[in-house]
């Protein structure tokens, strides 16, 4: 992160009274299992946050609670200054674990339908979104026949087609080849520079390392660390082989 950008951010933060997302003492139980045990944090707008942690640490749950897919058992969530997530639904995008796409429709058909849900009837905008993630909008193949990596990209296009101010990504790089993943992180960086607040849940910290503003580490439903960038110690827990593989093709 350059110094210039850092200054810019501090300026923006000074001016912006309102956090993009604020969670306060959020607890979420699934029956007898506590997935989140009192998470409190505020997130300034216009930054790229990476949520790290082991499987079952509560990363995805936190993201789903913030996006309003799950109600917190206790605690409060405020998104874009509103406690009622439904009222700001058109201002954020979400990309889930699963692709959230209809297998029987083509990429463009999928995007046109989901854009319509946001009140957008604009085919060119949908084509643009598909081009943005590096695919050809004229492809007529159905999404079900795409590779996992391509489906993830279309899923990202679906999440950003309405131009959200806030973007939540849940494991966006699972089963995505390294090149595609890098293109996706570049795209995210550009969106962040344009002012979008982005949350990425991942266990591939190395991929996000070049572009992350802040990282948060969750463990057993608790927020245990919050750091600028992604410190090297958080990149090591992953198998060395995987890291080398990620670096190699460059």
């Amino acid at each position: 992160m350059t110094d210039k950008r850092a200054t810019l951010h501090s300026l923006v933060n000074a001016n912006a009274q309102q956090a993009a997302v604020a969670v306060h003492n959020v607890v979420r139980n699934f029956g007898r299992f506590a997935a989140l045990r009192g998470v409190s944090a505020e997130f300034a707008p216009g930054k790229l946050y990476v949520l790290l942690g082991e499987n079952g640490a509560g990363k995805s749950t936190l993201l789903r609670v913030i996006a309003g897919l799950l109600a917190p058992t206790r605690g409060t969530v405020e998104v874009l200054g509103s406690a009622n997530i439904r009222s700001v639904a058109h201002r954020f995008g979400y990309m889930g674990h699963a692709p959230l796409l209809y297998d029987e429709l083509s990429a463009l058909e999928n995007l046109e339908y989901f854009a319509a849900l946001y009140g957008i009837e604009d085919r060119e905008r949908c084509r643009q979104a598909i081009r943005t993630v590096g695919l050809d909008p004229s492809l007529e193949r159905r999404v079900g026949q795409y590779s996992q990596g391509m489906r993830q990209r279309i899923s990202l296009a679906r999440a950003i087609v309405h131009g959200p101010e806030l973007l939540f990504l849940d494991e966006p790089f699972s089963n995505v080849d390294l090149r595609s993943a890098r293109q996706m992180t570049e795209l995210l960086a550009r969106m962040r520079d344009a002012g979008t607040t982005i949350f990425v849940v991942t266990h591939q910290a190395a991929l996000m390392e070049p572009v992350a503003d802040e990282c948060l580490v969750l463990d057993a439903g608790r927020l245990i660390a919050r750091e600028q960038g992604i410190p090297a110690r958080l990149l090591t827990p992953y198998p060395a082989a995987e890291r080398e593989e990620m670096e190699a093709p460059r």
Partner: protein
Amino acid sequence: MKTLFRLLLAVTVLLLGYGFCQAMYIAPREATMGDVQRIFYYHLPSAWVAFLLFFVNFLASAWYIVRRTDGADALALASAEVGVSFCTIVLITGPIWARPIWGIWWTWDARLTSTLVLWLIYVSYLMLRHYAAGGQVPVLAAALGIFGFLDVPIVYMAIRWFRTQHPQPVIGGGEGSGLDHRMWMAVLWNLLAFSLLAVLFVWTRYNQALEERALEEAHAQAALAEEELR
């Protein structure tokens, strides 16, 4: 609360005993039907209590949809469960009375049929509660509770009309009008006793439902404590 519960328990037991004496010994023998008619003193109060409980279930369900309180959900569950228990009594004692009086166990008469449909609806409600998993149960169950209750008048209308087109045995010989006042006393005492019994059952089940929830919560918290020790 605990002393109130015990007091209520004592009163209920006494009333159940008194109601039993009223029904079996004090109320006069019915002229044409004989002693079998005494089933009526348990049958009718059970039916009223069951209908009342289903109404409570409806109110609690609607309250839950609006306010989302754990208490409303617990009350909905408790009233449906106890209601089904009383409704089962109604459906079994009815045929036992009908057999010697009408010569048949069952007839697709309006009251019988709508009670049966009611029973089916609330059994399906309990099954939904049993088979649905996780935090969504209360909402889904509340929706079904509201649907079920609104269905009741339509069921009754449909079946009444259905029956008026077909010959049917006369229900209870129209004894409602000419009921001896001592017979009414037996009905009322038993109604009181059964209502109190239902209150006790619902109260207990309600507390248990809340306790179950608290226990779940405590489990989640306890797991937390363990993690911290590790």
